[in-house]
């Protein structure tokens, strides 16, 4: 596994020596911070209206502001993840192939699995590093909420975001291994992610096919997590998704040997 670690180190170095990681993290934080403000203000306004309504009818308000903010924020996070992951993975293999460094990796005593896993774990790490600072907004809110929101809701939400991100990163790596062109890799990854996303629409259908499609949607499982529910079937779903695409990437990298370079 020395090869896996070497590849992981190299990828992380690549992210953080070049401006890529900083631009990425910076942009992501600006967007999440802005939308967090918008969501917070919106939800508070909504809660005031609810309170006024409930005062008119003389009932106690049952609106849970922190939970609503959390749900909206994680919903927004999933949309941003959809846009950010294709850019994160587009160069993973495409650039190596274009520069000819793939030839170095593939003539070194390192297995394809080590290459693929090293690169996947590095992109997942960058993703986690990008995600982590956003927790500060939520922690701040949780600390000031009354009654305090249970921590596990926050943890479940981030677990969901990591699994969702990991799945899309695995998908993106696979697409990147198919082409030498970064732009094509990004666009196809985005289109494919979007497609899996919208499978969710079939949710309304009551047929058996509808149920299957619903299970295949990455977003339905994510919603469980944002409600603080960690469902085993969702865990299995995401792990299978990641393992499948890592396997496909290994096969694709291996097939580079058989194709005419």
């Amino acid at each position, binding site marked *: 596994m020395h*090869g896996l670690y070497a590849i992981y*180190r190299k990828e992380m170095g690549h992210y953080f*020596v070049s401006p890529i990681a900083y631009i990425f993290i910076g942009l992501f934080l600006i967007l999440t911070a802005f939308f967090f403000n918008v969501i917070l203000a919106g939800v508070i306004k909504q809660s005031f209206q609810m309170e006024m309504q409930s005062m008119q009818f003389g009932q106690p308000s049952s609106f849970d502001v922190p939970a609503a903010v959390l749900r909206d924020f994680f919903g927004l996070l999933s949309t941003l993840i959809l846009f950010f992951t294709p850019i994160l993975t587009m160069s993973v293999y495409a650039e190596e192939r274009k520069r000819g460094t793939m*030839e170095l990796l593939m*003539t070194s005593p*390192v297995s394809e699995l080590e290459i693929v896993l090293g690169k996947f774990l590095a992109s997942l790490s960058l993703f986690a590093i990008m995600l982590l600072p956003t927790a500060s907004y939520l922690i701040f809110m949780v600390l000031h909420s009354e009654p305090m929101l249970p921590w596990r809701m926050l943890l479940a939400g981030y677990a969901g975001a990591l699994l969702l991100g990991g799945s899309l990163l695995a998908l993106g790596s696979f697409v990147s291994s198919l082409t030498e062109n970064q732009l094509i890799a990004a666009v196809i990854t985005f289109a494919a992610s979007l497609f899996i996303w919208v499978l969710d629409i079939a949710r309304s259908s009551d047929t058996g096919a509808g149920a299957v499609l619903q299970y295949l949607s990455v977003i339905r499982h994510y919603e469980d997590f944002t409600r603080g529910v960690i469902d085993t079937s969702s865990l299995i779903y995401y792990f299978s998704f990641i393992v499948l695409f890592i396997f496909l990437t290994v096969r694709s990298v291996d097939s580079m040997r058989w194709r005419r370079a």
Partner: protein
Amino acid sequence: MIEVQDLTKSYGAVKAVDDVSFTVNKGEILGFLGPNGAGKTTTMRILTGYMPATSGTARVAGFDVFRDSMQVRRHIGYLPENPPVYPDMTVEAYLDFVARIKNVPAERRAVRIDDALRKTNLEDRRSELIKRLSRGYKQRVGIAQALVHDPDVIILDEPTVGLDPKQIIEVRNLIKGLAGNHTIILSTHILPEVSMTCDRVVIINKGKIAAVDTPQNLTSQLKGGQKIRIELEAPERRLREVLAQIPGASRVEVEPERTGERLVVTVEAAQGKDIRSDIAAKIVQNGWPLFELRGVSLSLEDIFLELTMEDATHAQPSS
């Protein structure tokens, strides 16, 4: 050290490498000579385990390149046509990465990196970003990368391409210095390169081996086809008659010089004969003004011509 048996690689109907067999002994430098697209790179890629052969076997350091690929890769240092470098890395960080993926143990890494930097004369560039280096320096980083794990076998695909004459000489000396401890295969399409560095030459054309021999034998064998270029003023018909009388002269080609009455004549001399003095004597006898008379060293194309002609025409006169 390297044994190649009946190696064939086809891409669809095209055979990039066609039934190639050769061996390289330990400590030897083998030159792979051939025009672009002759199958040099493909053969090297098969040897390094980058791609599998369609049929035939190749063994490096006793290991089959396909079945024991990992073992083979441990014993090989490889410089592809374009140096496989990461532009955002410094020279040292890059060599450290390569040493890691080549399985160099942690305690030996620093020593190996220093050694590779010293051999390729890169010591003063170690902390520079690779993207800031010139083409020649990048090539050296590529060579350093192939040396960093001290492999038994070093395979270099066109190591001197894109370098200036001074750098070419440095690289050649470097390669010569590596022989003995390492077994080296290098490919090139420059003829003097093989005669200067290699112990043996494999000439490959259209995927097939045209000749395997030492550079000395090849050049002496090809001395037979030495050409002589003459620039003079003379009546063409008379000149042809005179040259035809010289024993050993053949294939006289005459073309007028661009500017005027002068003629440029190429004469091919027969095997092992130096007919330059005979030609000079004849010209002086006839009182023709002579401007130039020199032997032309054979270009790669001539060698291929020679080698392919050998099968077709040269074989017939002797029989």
